[in-house]
């Protein structure tokens, strides 16, 4: 029978931490690939509607967003509490959508231009009037691929 010595004298050897940076880097790269940068800072509050039959938007680079909602607290004074539109980082008017789409499309590669998707991110309490106006503007701009952004419904 071997006797295991349990001398108080012996110190625990320090754990080798030289591989820790590698592990963290691996995590870092993992997160860098699966996540995406925040597109913009929201100036409108958006609680997306719920749905079940959702499809993922395939290519981020081909997607442009139109945000629709009521201005956030800090912009209330300036813009009121009516439903407003946000394109990129600024409040916009429905009439600006056409220009925006044309501009964004011409910045894309030629062979990808007709794959451009416009995602309408609207608050669920938005009235359909403004959505209808946006859709008409998108039609005029020949941005026919659209997507109504929504979140997965968890319960009925």
């Amino acid at each position, binding site marked *: 029978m071997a006797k295991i010595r349990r001398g108080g004298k012996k110190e625990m050897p320090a754990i080798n*931490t*030289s591989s*820790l*940076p590698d592990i*963290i*880097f691996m*995590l*870092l790269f993992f*997160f*860098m690939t*699966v*996540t*995406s*940068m*925040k597109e913009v800072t929201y100036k409108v509050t958006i609680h997306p*509607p*719920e*749905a*079940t*039959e*959702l*499809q*993922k*938007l395939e290519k*981020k680079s081909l*997607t442009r967003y139109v945000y629709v909602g009521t201005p956030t607290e800090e912009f209330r004074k300036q813009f009121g509490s009516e439903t407003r539109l946000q394109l990129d980082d600024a409040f916009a008017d429905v009439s600006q959508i056409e220009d925006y789409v044309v501009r964004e499309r011409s910045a894309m590669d030629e062979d990808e231009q007709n794959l451009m*998707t416009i*995602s*309408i991110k*609207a*608050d*669920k*309490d*938005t*009235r*359909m*009037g403004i*959505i*209808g106006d946006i*859709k*008409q503007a*998108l*039609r*005029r701009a*020949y*941005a*026919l*691929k*659209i*997507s*109504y*952004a*929504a*979140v*997965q419904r968890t319960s*009925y």
Partner: protein
Amino acid sequence: MAERKKRKMQEINASSMADISFLLLIFFLVTTSMDVSQGLSRRLPPPLPPDAKSQKNEIKERNIFIVKINSQNELLVQGQQIDVSQLRAKAIEFIDNPADDPNLPEKTTEEIPLLGTMTFTKDHVISVQNDVDTQYQAYVLVQNELVAAYNELRNRLAMERFGHLYDDLEEDQQKAIQKVYPQKISEAEPKNYGGKKNG
């Protein structure tokens, strides 16, 4: 010279490396968002040329499925007021027309690659009409139920013929099924409701 050989290269202290990478990791976690954009994909009809007269509906009445949503988010489907939860079953019955009902869309028989001869309702159209004051959530729900109806039919056919769900099929198989159940949800031209509510 001999002295030099003895001297070893001093090892770089790498213990702070972990801290640096942690910092980077946390930075990326904060600035990025995990949520993928999801949504209901739709295709808008091309714009009408400005000189074109509003086109007349040449679609037969039995081929059209009208869903109206009013400002109170209530549904009127084919002249009947129903709840959103009933819409899917209604739409499936309309698209599929299993009993060849003369009030439901006409069926045409066509040869489809991979599937053979199929009889299906080729010319059906689902028309969604909404009021200016309709809530967006209600509109999305209606769209959702209609897409769900198509997905259910497609899955059913895919299971029957290929033994897999529609999403798991090969691309050409999916195309064949799309031919049988094409998504025909028309985004109606907005109507000027003005004072009238019956548009």
